[in-house]
């Protein structure tokens, strides 16, 4: 079917990260008596109001969240905390400190009001 060995192995291993489009192609080639369709109405990321860029942002966030949940489960920590760290790690160390100082200033301003 013109796919790489790793993708075929993923299919054989029932890996749930296999793209639905790949699964559909495999079923078609095997002439399987099954019909699977993607229900776009139930896909939160494919709303008609979302641009390609917005879908990319949502997908990135969702991926980060899922990764955070896996890490949190393995280390018995909070997934939300881990997700914030994963975002911070996409910044340079000094950008992280700038963000923290900025939040401290905002905290101080809000308590002064």
């Amino acid at each position, binding site marked *: 079917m013109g796919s790489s060995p790793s993708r075929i192995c993923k299919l054989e291993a029932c890996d749930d990260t296999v793209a639905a489009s790949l699964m559909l192609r495999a079923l078609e080639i095997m002439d399987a008596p099954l019909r699977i369709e993607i229900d776009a109405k139930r896909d939160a990321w494919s709303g008609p109001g979302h641009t390609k860029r917005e879908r990319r942002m949502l997908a990135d966030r969702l991926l980060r969240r899922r990764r955070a949940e896996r890490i949190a489960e393995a*280390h018995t920590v909070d997934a939300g*905390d881990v997700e914030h*760290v994963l975002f911070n790690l996409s910044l340079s*160390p000094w950008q*992280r400190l700038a*963000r*923290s100082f900025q939040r401290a200033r905002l905290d101080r301003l809000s308590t002064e009001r």
Partner: protein
Amino acid sequence: MPGSTDFPLSDEELTFLRELTRAGAKFLIVGLGAAVLQGADAVTQDLDLWFRSVADPSIAQAARAAGGVFAWRSVPPMIAGDGLERLDIVLQCDGLDNFDVEYAHAADIPLDDFAVKILPLERIIASKRAAGRPKDKAVLEALKAALAARSTLD
């Protein structure tokens, strides 16, 4: 990096740290600032510096080069001057080995044309646990999450 809008240090703080490094002063960035530099999601408003010896004359020289002054006889010793207010000096860190042992295992963080040493996240957690103040306990979960996330990068 310096000059960009998201660089957190003042010119004076940068000068101070650069002069310390140039003079070979042994110091570590510790505390929550060091944790944030390593990715922890926490709010801090200062940088804690732990020196091998506060009697090191290069501290006063660096402070002077940055337009400030180092008051080593005050308790705790402090650096005063415009743009230097966020630098704090700590004399001891609970739950840690002596300075030389911790310094030997410190991580380097590049800063402009030099690098500074910071206490690794694991040791910050040990220190916060040992200190045990309410504000230390409050950040422990965030620090543990940072350690967990970083462990997946190695």
